[in-house]
């Protein structure tokens, strides 16, 4: 080994010797020159960061394509590469880091109490841990506005309050004198919807009733799709209804025929509504289809709670069978399955993928349930009553827990997204900015027809219609304009276009075509073979690594 190295070195040295005269000359010349830039070109970007902003695979430029197409592809490639690089470069403009909680040696983070955390953090953050003792009006449902500044509480026995929770300022407090099933902020903190015993009501932030929507009765759960301005409601009569809050129109009413719908969540990635049913299935709905897009059997008992993460990759469900399951919702495949001793009644996922699960009066927070199998919670906290509603506050390390005895705001380090998008949801916006944002958001409103399981579907060519149209065209024209033209041999004079000759020429061309096809298939096959071999070799290597090296002597 060493000898080799020496050899290399000597070779290098030899090369040096050869280059020496040149080098000296170069040096003298360099001496005259002005100092060169030691770091020429743009600053390098780390590969992983570039990879983070990757949007699409590279498209190959076809060799014999029209120049316009070639130009187009090349330009698009350049632009996307530039976009990717720029995005990676500008990533440093997101300076905030997520928080975390770290225990001492041999101390579980789940044993650290909220009081300790509140004492240890700065005063502002410490003030975010608080309890509201509201024992009179029963278990509370919770919702935070999209910016995370405002909190909406809805007590089972009719108490509705909205609070600017950071300044602890009460915006309004009313009693609707009816049982309240669910509360939800609409697009801004100026309006919220309350699902009351009979109908759906909309109030403004002063507690004035704006609408009573009689079309929506017996609503149990609500979800608001912020980019579509749709309020989706699930009712006890097994109806899933969509209300366009920008125009006040009912967009769709779907009878799911699955009984009482009291488990609901939305997929923030594609605005699909997930419903959980007592027969252990979870169904996915869009307003455009009267039947469920997907029906998954998740639990052996009834489904108690469903939640989907921000990227629309994972769905977490909990059921009566006391299991907590994690699904890859893109492939509809189960990833992990956990057994919770008492089962989870409420689930909620934070922006950074922390899962909170409530069992009875204990709120547990899990970290990264989909990648590494967890065996104990990241945090745990006991509240006073049975947990009724859980909601992570956006852009804050706070988990709001609504329970029988009121409301608890919990500190969960690392829960919220540290960097907010000021144009999308700005927690610090003024009233004027809010108005501006509202106008822009309304202009950019996505129509409900565009909701589909795969949001990128819109950018795809409609294959079915394309084929249909092509067929029609073929019928109208009497021939296929896109088909390859049949080879008709040229007529040659002087008797060279004999029947045999013509046939021969035809055959030649046909053979050429066939050869090409064969070549292609052979190439494909070779490639596949190679891949397979590699895989096998890998496997073999794994196997051999397990065996002893002396095994080969045993025959």
């Amino acid at each position, binding site marked *: 080994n060493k000898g080799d190295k*020496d050899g290399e*070195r000597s070779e290098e040295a030899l090369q040096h*010797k050869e280059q020496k005269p040149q080098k000296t000359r170069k040096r003298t010349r360099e001496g005259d020159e002005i100092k060169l830039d030691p770091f020429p070109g743009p600053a390098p970007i780390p590969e992983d960061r570039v990879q983070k902003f990757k949007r*699409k*695979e590279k498209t190959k430029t*076809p060799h014999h*394509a*029209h*120049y*316009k197409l070639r130009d*187009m592809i090349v330009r*698009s490639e350049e*632009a996307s590469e530039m*976009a990717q690089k720029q*995005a990676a470069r500008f990533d440093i403009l997101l300076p905030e880091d997520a928080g975390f909680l770290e225990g001492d040696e041999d101390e*579980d983070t789940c044993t650290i109490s909220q009081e300790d955390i509140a004492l240890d953090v700065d005063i502002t953050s410490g003030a975010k841990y608080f309890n509201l003792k509201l024992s009179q009006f029963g278990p509370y449902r919770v919702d935070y506005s999209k910016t995370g500044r405002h909190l909406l509480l809805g007590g089972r026995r009719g108490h509705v309050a909205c609070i600017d929770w950071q300044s602890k300022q009460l915006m309004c407090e009313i009693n609707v004198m009816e049982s309240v099933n669910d509360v939800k902020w609409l697009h801004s903190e100026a309006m919220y919807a309350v699902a009351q015993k009979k109908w759906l009501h909309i109030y403004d932030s002063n507690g004035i009733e704006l609408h009573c929507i009689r079309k929506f009765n017996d609503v149990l759960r609500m979800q608001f799709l912020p980019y579509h301005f749709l309020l989706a409601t699930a009712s006890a009569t097994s109806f899933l209804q969509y209300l366009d809050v920008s125009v006040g129109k009912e967009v769709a009413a779907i009878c799911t025929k699955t009984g009482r719908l009291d488990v609901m969540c939305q997929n923030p990635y594609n605005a699909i509504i997930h419903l959980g049913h007592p027969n252990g299935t979870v169904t996915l709905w*869009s307003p*455009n*289809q009267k*039947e*469920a897009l*997907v029906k998954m*059997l998740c*639990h*052996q*008992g*009834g489904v108690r709670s469903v939640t989907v993460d921000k990227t629309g990759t994972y769905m977490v469900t909990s059921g009566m*069978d006391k299991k907590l399951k994690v699904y890859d919702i893109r492939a*509809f495949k189960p990833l992990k*399955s956990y*057994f919770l*001793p008492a089962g989870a*009644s409420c689930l909620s996922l934070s922006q950074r993928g922390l899962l909170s699960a409530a069992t*009875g*009066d204990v709120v547990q927070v*899990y970290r990264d349930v989909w990648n590494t*199998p967890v065996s*104990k*919670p990241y945090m*745990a906290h006991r509240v006073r*009553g049975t947990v009724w509603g859980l909601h992570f506050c956006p852009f804050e390390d706070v988990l709001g827990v609504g329970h*029988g005895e009121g409301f608890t705001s919990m500190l969960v380090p690392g829960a919220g997204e540290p960097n907010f998008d000021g144009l999308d949801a700005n927690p610090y916006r003024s009233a004027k900015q809010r108005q501006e944002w509202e106008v822009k958001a309304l202009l950019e409103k996505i129509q409900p*027809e*565009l909701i*589909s399981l795969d949001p990128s579907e*819109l*950018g*795809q*060519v*409609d294959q079915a*219609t*394309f084929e249909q*149209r092509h067929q029609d065209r073929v019928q109208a024209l009497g021939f296929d304009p896109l088909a390859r033209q049949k080879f008709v041999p040229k007529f040659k004079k002087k008797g060279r276009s004999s029947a045999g000759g013509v046939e021969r020429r035809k055959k030649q061309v046909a053979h050429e075509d066939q050869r090409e096809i064969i070549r292609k298939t052979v190439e494909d096959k070779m490639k596949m073979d190679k891949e397979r071999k590699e895989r096998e070799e890998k496997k073999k290597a794994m196997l*051999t690594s*397990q065996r*002893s*090296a*002396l*095994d080969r*002597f045993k025959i």
Partner: protein
Amino acid sequence: MKKEGKKKLFYGSAGNYSVTTISLTAHACTGQFVVDKFNMAKVSKKKVNKKNLKKSFELTDESATVNEHVVYDDDEEEQELNEADENITSEEEEYGCEDDRKRQKLLEAISALGGKRKKRLGERSEAAVQMSEFTVNAEGEGDKIDLSDLIGTMDKTPAISAKTKNRLRKLQKSKKTIECPLSKQETERIQRDVAFQKAATEVSRWDGIIKQNQRAEQLVFPVNQEPSGPKPMERVVTSWKAQTPLEQEIFALLSANKQPITDPILTPTETASLKAMSLEEAKIRRAELQKARALQSYYEAKARRERKIKSKKYHKVHNKDKRKVFLKQFDEMVKTDPAAALEELNKMELARMQERMSLKHQNSGKWAKSKAVMAKYDEGARKAMQQQLEVNKELTQKLITSLNNEEEEEGVDVEVMPDFVNDAEQGLDSSNPWMRGKLSEDHTEKEISDIVDLSAEGAGVAENTAEEEEDTEKVEETEEEALLREFDSRRKLRQAQEADVVPVIGVDGEEEEEEVVVENKSAAEELDASDKEAEELTEFTSLFRGIAEQAEAAADASPSDTKTQLDEGLMRIKTLEDVELLSQEESAPEIASVQPQPSPATENLPHATQQGGKNRKRKRGIELKEVLTKETKVIQVPLAPTVEDKEDSDENLDQRGLIKEAFAGDDVISDFLRDKRKQEDAGKPKVVDLTLPGWGEWGGMGLKVSRNKRRRFRIKTAPPPPRKDERLPSVIISERKNSSISLHQVNSLPFPFENHSQFESIICSPVGRTWNTERTVKRVTKPKVVTRLGAIIEPMAREELMRDKNHGSAGNAK
């Protein structure tokens, strides 16, 4: 006709006053003719045309009238025409000519009175067969005109130079006839061709620019704009000159001393002086370089020499020497400089890791393979291989030094292992054998300690239910792990068959677990013997897994009933019989909390398959079961809920609800399967039956339509494409097409695209500000044409073209 011919002649003469009969000048004449004609057209085309028309009318009408009249008429016409011509030609000439002609005419007229017609005939033009368009009629055909006739007078005139005379004489001598001039059409064609070629070359110069502009991403008009931004000082100040004497003096001084006038940078002399080095410095530097070079060459020579030594022994000794030296150094270092020693250790560790990762000394190289072939017969080869393996072992062995030992001992002393060890094991990464193998030792220890703890606690009072629960779960887990580890160790034992390879602790530490394995195996074998179908085996395993899990769940589920059930949970599931027992025990009293699974005795699931159903369906049922009973991880919760959920408590009270919940699973699955099958069937195309009973054969009650006919008239449609949820047993995906989105989709490929993927890939990259940085947005949404407001966009000048060409060539050169 006569008249027309004359007219023509007249035109010709009007255009050109030279004689037209000479063929020499004919060509030029036509050219001029064309030009003149054009001129005329400019001035009085209309007029002439009118006249012509009039004339033709007169011609037709008065053809029969007297000659005199005709003559007169002619005269008039001519006069008129001449008047028309006046505009172009000089008047005096015209008058002269006219006078002559008039006189001629008058003479003719007079002679005509005399009745001499012949003479007149000779002068008038004839309608000839061959009529040239050069208005040369064949009038004087008979009498040839010689060149000598024309140039006869030349000799006499002294004004003409001798040279021309000579030439003319030569011309006279040459007998060659001059080719007949091309016809008008042909010449015109040639001219057109030439003109076209000229124009084409002229225009084709722009081709490059046109193509470039067509392909350009962006066009900016007006074309030659000055680049925006700051301009260099010199250009701005060019117009300004030193005017006052003071200024002039200063500038003179500056320029005389090579001082910068416009830009405050260093003067050339200054830069030169800055660059220069002092002599001593240069000398020192040179010496240094010389020395370095010499050293390098020595080193090279030495290395080359050493490399050439082929003796293996030498190298071995050499290496050993080195190692010894190193060790000595290391020992010293440990005493003197522990930090550096630690670093060295780290280095060693790194080397070890590398060795472990690369399979360098594991007899997998080329040399090793060749040796392996020989090893059977050759003692030396075997030895060499052994040696290599030793090297490998040595390298992969963890170094135990005094520094490390202490730490390790400390680590052992602490009973509770650090958390991460636990985590890694719980990860149970089956694909990574290293992890498992390495951690096995630690875990047995831990397990033992755990068991001890547990027994101690079991003896003691159950203080905290939650804590105990945690412990039991731990036990369960460790059991599983132990089992896995056991398998691992056994395999190793079998494969390696070397005493030192087998971990000692693994053998003597867990005898009872080995028992478990053996028993388990025997049970499995029995089952195998009884029913050999592989399917059933898989089913069995899955069921087993499910049951084990359920048992676990049963043990853990109810924290309220404490002691007795906990004891049950603690019972080790050693064999299958045990499992069965356990499940039976729990199913016997129906209040058992969670027991959805029937005992494995009733192996075939009642719901999934209806016993003798098709194999395929059964398989699917099993798969589904497996999906639902995917290995579950039990989570330990530090705080046990004291308050039950309201819903839960209600249902807890209700026995029936509980039972329903317990047995819900089967129902759920079968329902789901039924639902799925229904959906699948709905998606399948139906067979169209067109058979008509009684056609072509006898009909009536109890008569079947013949098979042949059925085959002919039952139309089967092609099977639909495979369902999206074909491979997903627990999922039903709706196959209905989303028509609302297809309204917004592109349904025909735009022009340059050849396939969908190209179009889609170009469409899919986002453009808006929400997804891109500002610069990218600007770049992506660049307008195709940019114009400056108020600027006049002039067509491109030819100079522009030339400049572009120059630029292009310069660019190419670059």
